[in-house]
């Protein structure tokens, strides 16, 4: 099985656009962008992603809350989730992983490298 479909949850339209470009054009993945946690929770079953990217700081339902919601979908039990966040202290990375995320991607990311990074995260989750 290979990585094909990625669900991306991010409220900032610019970051949404550049992430989409990086994953679609550079990586060749199929991407569904959602602007909020509730929107992602409503669409996740129909889209059936192989991997989920979650922004940490979103108004209303934030990244960790969205992750908790996603974990309630039984079909998503094996789908890896990576958080995306601006530079934080090393302790916070550990904290975010402790919440059940596979990895934490630090923003800003290099759009030319993001797809490779995501592919690595996905491969690691399959071991």
């Amino acid at each position: 099985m290979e990585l094909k479909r990625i669900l991306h949850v991010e409220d900032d339209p610019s970051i949404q656009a550049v992430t989409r470009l990086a994953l679609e054009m550079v990586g060749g993945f199929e991407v569904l962008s959602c602007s909020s946690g509730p929107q992602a929770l409503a669409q996740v079953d129909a889209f059936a992603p192989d991997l989920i990217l979650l922004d940490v700081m979103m108004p209303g339902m934030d990244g960790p809350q969205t992750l908790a919601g996603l974990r309630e979908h039984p079909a998503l039990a094996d789908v890896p989730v990576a958080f995306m966040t601006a530079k934080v202290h090393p302790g916070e990375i550990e904290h975010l992983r402790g919440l059940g995320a596979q990895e934490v991607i630090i923003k800003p990311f290099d759009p030319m490298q993001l797809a490779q990074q995501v592919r690595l995260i996905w491969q690691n989750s399959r071991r």
Partner: protein
Amino acid sequence: MMTARPKDEVRDALRALNEQFAERLRRELPALAAQAERLSGDMAGERRAIELDDLRSRLHRLAGAAGSFGQPALGREAWRLEQRIARWLEASEPAEAGFGELAEAMRELARKDLSGAGDTAPVPSLEAEPAGQCIYLMESDPQACRLISQTLRTFGYQVQACHDLDGLEALFRQQPPDALVLALHACDALTRVKALQAGLERPLPLMVIGERDDFDIQLAAVRAGAEGFFTRPLDLTRLESRLARSLERQQGEPYRVLIVDDDADLTLRYSLVLRGARMEVQALDEPVRLFETLHAFNPEVVLLDLNMPGCSGLELAQMIRLHDDWLRIPIIYLSVETDASRQMEALVKAGDDFITKPISDSALVSAVFSHAQRARALSAALTRDGLTGLLTHASIKEQLLVEVDRARRSGRPACVVMLDIDRFKQVNDSHGHAAGDSVIRALANLLRQRLRRVDSLGRYGGEEFLAVLPDCSATQALRIFDHIRERFAELTFSAGGASFQATLSAGICETNPALDAGTLLEQADRALYAAKHGGRNQVCVAD
């Protein structure tokens, strides 16, 4: 499924996104500045905390986004401001006096030139004078205090002066500076400074001016984190260059680290840890692409897994050492090998150090950091001029070729500038060579302060300097160098009881696809000659 597109197409699409983002910043940054400005107005404490938190999260967002849109410097500045607000919020007593400065920093951010956004390697603004680093100066003698502040300001620093430790501690409570310059009489004062430093995430560059220079006070200075120690009469030029070097080390470009390892999990882990310590990391899992990656990324340290399928880390290290270009690069092996004699054998053949897996995050960071730091210092010693720290004659000429070529490819103009200190022989003859050296060093420091990181600067000859400014028109260069010329003329030097001033002349030539590097140099030199001929203390542009 969609397929990956050719790189050019991707880059064009990215460029378009970068431009959209720059457009968005042009709208949002002034709004952010206005928000910061409202904070210094009349506002209830609770309301203010909410506004501050909102501002913090907007800056956080900007810090995370800007770098992906070709605006890394802006992102870093946003991150710095975010940290500043976070500190206030943690202390739950936002420092009133800091609001004005915050608003000013936000306005500065909004003034930034965003036009580099279309490029993947953006160039910072030339027009706005770079926001100076903030120095807290403690000096009880008012006359000396005025002189030191004035000189440091001429060099482009922002200086906040106080007269005693209580004043210094009050300034610190508002916000720690970028560096400290402290005149001290007693050792116990340094104990208080040490306590101030201990409260910070990492100690600030500290220069101590001692009334005496005995063992005890120097030991106390070192314990408080001093990186420079000076006695009176004070050589301000030397103090400034020491300060500049410390700040450069603290805030310089992140170290570049290449990891070659086939274990994707570990690679990702190491990358995260090293990036968290402000290093730039590239990972490679196919040794075949090693040289291509070395050339493209130009790392300062290489981490090599000792055991990889196909070829071993030891073999790769030996291959790296086959090439003169990579003789100096530190190679650190990653290995589960604990057999000391095999480690030794690997080090004898090639390589500099061993990291035995598993390794703690902090041990990894310090191992890589110490090698990177030494490698950079060594490379600086070989390519930099001893007196000024600028590029040597050979290195700046090499840089000129690189920049002229870059300008041709990008289609954007660059400028070549030749500079010379006026009547320098007279300075040497009447005030001695030591005074002459101090004038040269002062000009070097001033140039370094005023030019951007992307500009190249070298000592071309005795009192002659060469600067290459990418993405800069002759009009812009003229404005900048005229400003530098004025600043330089304001500096007062002292030697043997006498004080004197010096001036400079400069010649500018803008690149043009038809001209090669040699011709550009000649034209800049001719413009310099015209400036000298026209009466010195002026800047001329080649026709």
